[in-house]
């Protein structure tokens, strides 16, 4: 017997109306989010609200006041108390979706103790090329799909890496990426002893890029990688334009077997 309005008793009723979205698979999925800054905040929010069952969050930094223009889960007192980003994002997401298993790891991704094959997808929310390359290499080696996001002011990009056949992040890089390998952009609470100019960062671009990242992850988790971006989406928020560009595997890239 149908009770009027009973469909509103289901948290995910409206998600279930999307034909290709596999809610059971999302609930059983384990996802890694690397970076709990601006993008990480939005990505974890979107994953939790979408019903992903298990989220591990990695970040080594603490909150500073300048994060608060674009980080949903941080508050002024977190900056005063130097709260750790990974923990705060996990706490905030738990509040949104209590059934979600959230595991914060406060530390560098290079030191992360969780085995890579345990994850169904990795989302990169990082602020430097070096860490991106590390995550890219490990994900590709373990055949785990990797969805990387990046922002700069009103510009952003999302790249979807689908091993074993697709190009990886490193395939699209050149000497301009080499030159900024360890430079960190936007979010940082770590102490620095030299001047490091900060990059423009704001919530609207962060939200757009994080939304696209999570949407691509949902496609992968629902066994629909055929629907994914091939291979990089570039977004220009000032002009309100985006474009999807293709790239090929690079012969010199060490992440791929010799072709």
């Amino acid at each position, binding site marked *: 017997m149908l009770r009027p309005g009973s469909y509103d008793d289901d948290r995910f009723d409206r998600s279930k109306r999307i034909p290709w979205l596999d809610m059971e698979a999302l609930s059983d999925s384990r996802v890694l989010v690397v*970076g709990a*800054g601006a*993008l990480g905040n939005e990505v974890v929010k979107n994953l939790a609200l979408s019903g992903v069952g298990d989220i591990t969050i990695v970040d080594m930094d603490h909150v500073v006041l300048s994060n608060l223009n674009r980080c949903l889960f941080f508050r002024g007192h977190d900056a005063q108390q130097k709260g750790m980003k990974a923990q705060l994002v996990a706490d905030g997401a738990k509040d949104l979706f209590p059934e979600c298993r959230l595991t914060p790891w406060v530390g560098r991704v290079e030191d992360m103790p969780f085995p890579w094959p345990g994850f169904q997808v990795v989302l990169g929310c990082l602020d430097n090329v070096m860490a991106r390359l590390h995550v890219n290499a490990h994900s590709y080696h373990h055949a785990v799909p990797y969805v990387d996001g*990046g922002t*700069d002011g009103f510009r952003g990009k999302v790249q979807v890496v689908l091993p074993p056949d697709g190009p990886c992040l490193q395939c699209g*890089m*050149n000497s301009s990426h080499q030159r*900024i390998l360890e430079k960190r952009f936007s979010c940082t609470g770590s102490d620095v002893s030299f001047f490091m100019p900060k990059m423009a960062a704001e919530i609207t671009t962060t939200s757009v890029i994080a939304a696209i990242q999570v949407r691509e992850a949902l496609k992968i988790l629902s066994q629909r990688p055929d629907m994914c971006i091939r291979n990089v989406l*570039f977004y220009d928020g000032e002009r309100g334009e985006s474009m999807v560009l293709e790239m090929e595997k690079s012969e*010199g890239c060490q992440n791929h077997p010799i072709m």
Partner: protein
Amino acid sequence: MGIRLKVKNAEMGKELTLELSPDETIEDVINSAAEYWNKDSGAYIIRRGKQILKGGMKISELGILNDDVVELIPDPEGG
């Protein structure tokens, strides 16, 4: 003999014409264009149509003809 390549700046909408030798690479194009427009140090890619061109590829390998147009696009690395 040099090849004329037009490089469009995705941020400013301006265009630059480079005269390139066949052995010069896409990275040479990025470096020249970035220097010409006084770009901040950052990462950039070059696209031709829907394709991102690999940095190490030579002009001669890409089949570039005189007055072809490519675009210099910043590659956002913040998060």
